[in-house]
C-alpha cells in the first residue's frame, strides 16, 4: 500500500466510487424505483384507455389538435441536446473539465431522445400504421424529416455513448469479478469487445470517438431544426417564422444544459461524487447556461418585436393573448422564472452557489416547458376564420401519460446507473495523466482527504 503513488491512490479511489453503485443498492433505491414504476404504470393504463377509446379521451379537439404530447415531444428533444453540447463540443474544444460529466450528458441524450421520440407516436390517431412511415414515407413532409433525423440522432448518440464505455466495461469486468453475478460479468466481458488497453486499441477508440463527436454536432442541430419546422412549415400565426430553426436549437441547448446541471447534482448527492463533480463544474456549466439564456432572451425579443410591431391581424391577436391575455401567466412565468431569475442567480457572485444554480436550472426547464406549451397551443387555438378561440384543457389521460414520460426518464436513468459506470473512469485517468505531464496535477488537490479512504477501500477492492 505504501508504495502506491498519489496518482495510483486517486485512480483506485475513483474506480471504487464509480463502480460502487453497480454492486451496492440501497433500500432507498428500491423505494424510488418502485414509485417511478407506479407512475409509469398509471401512464400505461392511461395509454391503454386512449388506445381503446381513441384520442377523444384527451382534451384535444378539431381546433387545438396538438397539446401536452407535442409539448413534451419538443421538451424532451430539447433536453437531449445536453449530450451533444457538453460532450461533443467540449470534447472537440479540449475542455479538460468536461471529463467527469460527459457520460451523464451522453446518457441524457439517449434517454431523452427515446422518451421524446415516443411522444408523437402516442399522439398518433393510428399508431398501428407506424410502418407506413417506412412503406409510404414522403420526403416533402416535415414529419418524415423528423423521423429520419431523430432515428439518425438516436443511432449516433447510442454509438457515441457506447464507444467511451468500452474501456469502462472492461474495467467493470476486471474489478467486479466475484462482486456481482456471473451473467452480468459475462455481459460486461461481451460489451468490452476484448478491450486490453493496447496502444492500437486506444488509437482506434480515440479515432472512433473523434469521428462521432464531430458527426453528432450537425446531426443534433438538424434534429431540433426539423422539430421546429413541423411548426414553421405551416402558415399559422406564431409558427410562420424564419428564425424557428435556430430559435429552437438555442432553446434546446439551453434547456439541455439546465438538464445536465440538475442531473449532475442528483448523482453527486446520491452517489457521493463530490470529489469529481465539483463547484467548478457547476460554475462552468452555469456560465454556458447564462450565455444560452441571454441568446434565447434575444431570440425571443427579436421574434416577438418583429411580429408585434407590424399590424398583421393573426399575429397581433396571438401576441395580445400571450402578453396580457389568456396565456400571459405561462408566458411571463417563462420570461421571469425561466430566463430572468436564472440569469440573475448566475450573474450575482453571492448567489452563484451550487444549490441556487440547481434551483435556477430547474426553473429554466419549467420555463422552457411552458414556453413550448405557448408555442404549440395558442397558435392552434387562434381562430383562422371568425370564430371563438379554441379551448384546450388536458385530461387526466394526457397528464398521466406526461407524468409517466417524466417518470420514465428518471426510471431509465436510475436503472442505467446500476448497469454502467456513471463517470467515464478511463477518461478521468487519461486527464490526470495528461495533467501530470502538461500542467499542475489535478488529483493532488484531493489527495490529502483521500489517504484514509484509500486504505479503507484498498482491501475491499482487491479480491
Amino acid at each position, binding site marked *: 500500500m505504501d508504495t502506491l503513488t498519489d496518482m495510483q491512490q486517486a485512480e483506485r479511489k475513483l474506480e471504487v466510487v464509480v463502480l460502487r453503485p453497480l454492486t451496492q443498492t440501497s433500500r432507498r433505491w428500491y423505494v424510488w424505483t418502485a414509485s417511478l414504476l407506479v407512475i409509469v404504470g398509471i401512464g400505461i393504463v392511461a395509454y391503454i384507455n386512449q388506445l381503446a*377509446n*381513441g*384520442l*377523444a379521451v*384527451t382534451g*384535444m*379537439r*378539431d*381546433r387545438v*389538435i*396538438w397539446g401536452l404530447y407535442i409539448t413534451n415531444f419538443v421538451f424532451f428533444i430539447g433536453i437531449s441536446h445536453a449530450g451533444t453540447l457538453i460532450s461533443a463540443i467540449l470534447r472537440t474544444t479540449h475542455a479538460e473539465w468536461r471529463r467527469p460529466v460527459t457520460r451523464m450528458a451522453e446518457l441524457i441524450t439517449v434517454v431523452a431522445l427515446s422518451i421524446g421520440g415516443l411522444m*408523437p407516436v402516442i*399522439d*398518433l*390517431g*393510428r399508431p398501428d*400504421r*407506424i410502418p*407506413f*412511415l417506412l*412503406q*409510404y*414515407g*414522403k*420526403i*416533402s*413532409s*416535415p*414529419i*418524415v424529416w423528423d*423521423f429520419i433525423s431523430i432515428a439518425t440522432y438516436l443511432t449516433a448518440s447510442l454509438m457515441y455513448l457506447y464507444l467511451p464505455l468500452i474501456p469502462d466495461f472492461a474495467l467493470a469486468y476486471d474489478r467486479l469479478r466475484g462482486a456481482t453475478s456471473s451473467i452480468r460479468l459475462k455481459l460486461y466481458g461481451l460489451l468490452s469487445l476484448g478491450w486490453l488497453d493496447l496502444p*492500437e486499441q486506444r488509437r482506434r477508440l480515440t479515432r472512433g470517438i473523434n469521428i462521432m463527436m464531430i458527426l453528432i454536432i450537425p446531426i443534433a442541430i438538424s434534429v431540433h431544426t426539423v422539430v421546429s419546422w*413541423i*411548426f414553421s*412549415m*405551416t*402558415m*399559422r400565426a406564431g409558427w410562420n417564422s424564419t428564425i424557428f430553426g435556430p430559435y429552437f436549437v438555442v432553446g434546446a441547448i439551453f434547456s439541455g444544459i439546465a438538464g445536465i446541471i440538475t442531473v449532475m447534482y442528483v448523482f453527486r448527492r446520491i452517489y457521493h461524487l463530490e470529489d469529481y463533480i465539483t463547484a467548478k463544474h457547476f460554475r462552468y456549466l452555469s456560465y454556458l447556461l447564462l450565455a444560452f439564456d441571454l441568446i434565447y432572451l434575444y431570440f425571443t425579443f427579436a421574434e416577438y418585436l418583429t411580429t408585434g410591431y407590424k399590424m398583421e391581424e393573426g399575429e397581433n391577436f396571438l401576441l395580445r393573448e400571450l402578453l396580457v391575455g389568456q396565456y400571459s401567466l405561462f408566458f411571463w412565468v417563462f420570461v421571469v422564472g425561466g430566463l430572468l431569475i436564472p440569469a440573475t442567480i448566475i450573474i450575482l457572485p453571492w448567489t452563484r452557489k451550487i444549490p441556487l444554480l440547481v434551483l435556477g436550472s430547474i426553473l429554466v426547464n419549467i420555463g422552457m416547458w411552458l414556453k413550448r406549451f405557448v408555442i404549440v397551443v395558442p397558435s*392552434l387555438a387562434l381562430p*383562422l*376564420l*371568425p*370564430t371563438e378561440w379554441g379551448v384546450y384543457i388536458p385530461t387526466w389521460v394526457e397528464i398521466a401519460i406526461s407524468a409517466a414520460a417524466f417518470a420514465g426518464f428518471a426510471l431509465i436513468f436510475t436503472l442505467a446507473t446500476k448497469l454502467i459506470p456513471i463517470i467515464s473512469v478511463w477518461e478521468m485517468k487519461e486527464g490526470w495523466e495528461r495533467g501530470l505531464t502538461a500542467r499542475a496535477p489535478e488529483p493532488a488537490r484531493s489527495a490529502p482527504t483521500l489517504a484514509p479512504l484509500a486504505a479503507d477501500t484498498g482491501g475491499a477492492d482487491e479480491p
Partner: protein
Amino acid sequence: MNDDPQDLKQRVNRRQLLKLLGTVGVTPIAARLLPDLLPHLSDASPAQDKTESRRIRQWVLVFDLRKCEGCVTIGEAPQCIEACNAEHFVPKGQEWIKVFEMESPGGHSFFLPRPCMQCENPPCLNVCPVGATYMNEEGVVLVNHERCIGCRMCMAACPYAARVFNWEQPENPPGATFATYSPEYPVPHRQGTVEKCMLCAHRTMDGKLPACVEGCPMYAIYLGDLTEDIATNGKDVVKLSLFLASNSAYRLKEELGTRPRVFYIPGHGQESGHDIDEHRPVIPARSWQEQGVSLDDPQGGH
C-alpha cells in the same frame, strides 16, 4: 493491428471507390428529391396541359353570397350543411362545410359557407408523411383513410380549418360495414383518421351535383368546370370565367398562394330577401342521425 502497405493501399482504394459511388449515387437522388421538397417551384402547367387535352374536369365551386343568407330567412339550419351531413353520414360534431358569419366594414355581417378549398397548391398535401392526402386528376384533394396515420399535420397546415378528425370511432349507418370504402366516398368512417369535404367526388363522377349544391334552397352554390368554362347551380348555367369576372369574385386568403378552387361573389343574401339591418344568427345544423337518414336513402337530407 495490420498496417502493412498492402493493406493500407487496399483501404485507400476502397475509400476512393466509396467516395465515387457516393457522389454518383447522391447526385441523382438529390436532383430527384428537390422537386419533391419544393413542389410548387416546379410549375404545375404540364399536368394541366395533359388534362386539358384529355378534357378531364377541373372542378370548382362558386358561392354567390348575394343569394346566401345562411338560411336564416327561412328559419332553417344551413341546408348545405344538412345535405352534406346526410349525404356522407358525417360523424356527429363535424361539419365538412361550415357557415361563418363574417363581419363587413361598417359593422354589418354576411354569411360565408366554407367547404374544403380544393387548393391547386394544397398545403395539406405537402406535409402528409405517408401520402394519404392526394389530388385526383380532376383537381380534388382526397384523403385515403386506409393510409392516414392520424398525425394531424395536415390540419395544422390548412389555413382554412377545413379538416376535422375522428377523435373516436364515429357512428356509422347500419349496413355501412358492408359498404365499399373509397376515398371519394369515405363510408364507413374510421377512428383516428382525418376527414374533410371532397367535393362529392363520388357524385360528380356520376354526373350529379354535389350534395351542398343540390341542397341549397337559394341556388347560391355553383359547381363549375375550368376546362369547359361552365358552371351551374342546378337551375342556371353560366359561363364560368365571365360569371366570376363580371361579379368581382374573390377567393379566401388569396395572398397565401394556395390558389383555392372555391370562389365567392360578394354579397349578404340580398337576392334571397335578407335584410341587412335585421340580425339573425345561423341555426345549428342537424346531424344525419337527427335527420333520420339511412344508407338506403342517401339523399335523405334534401
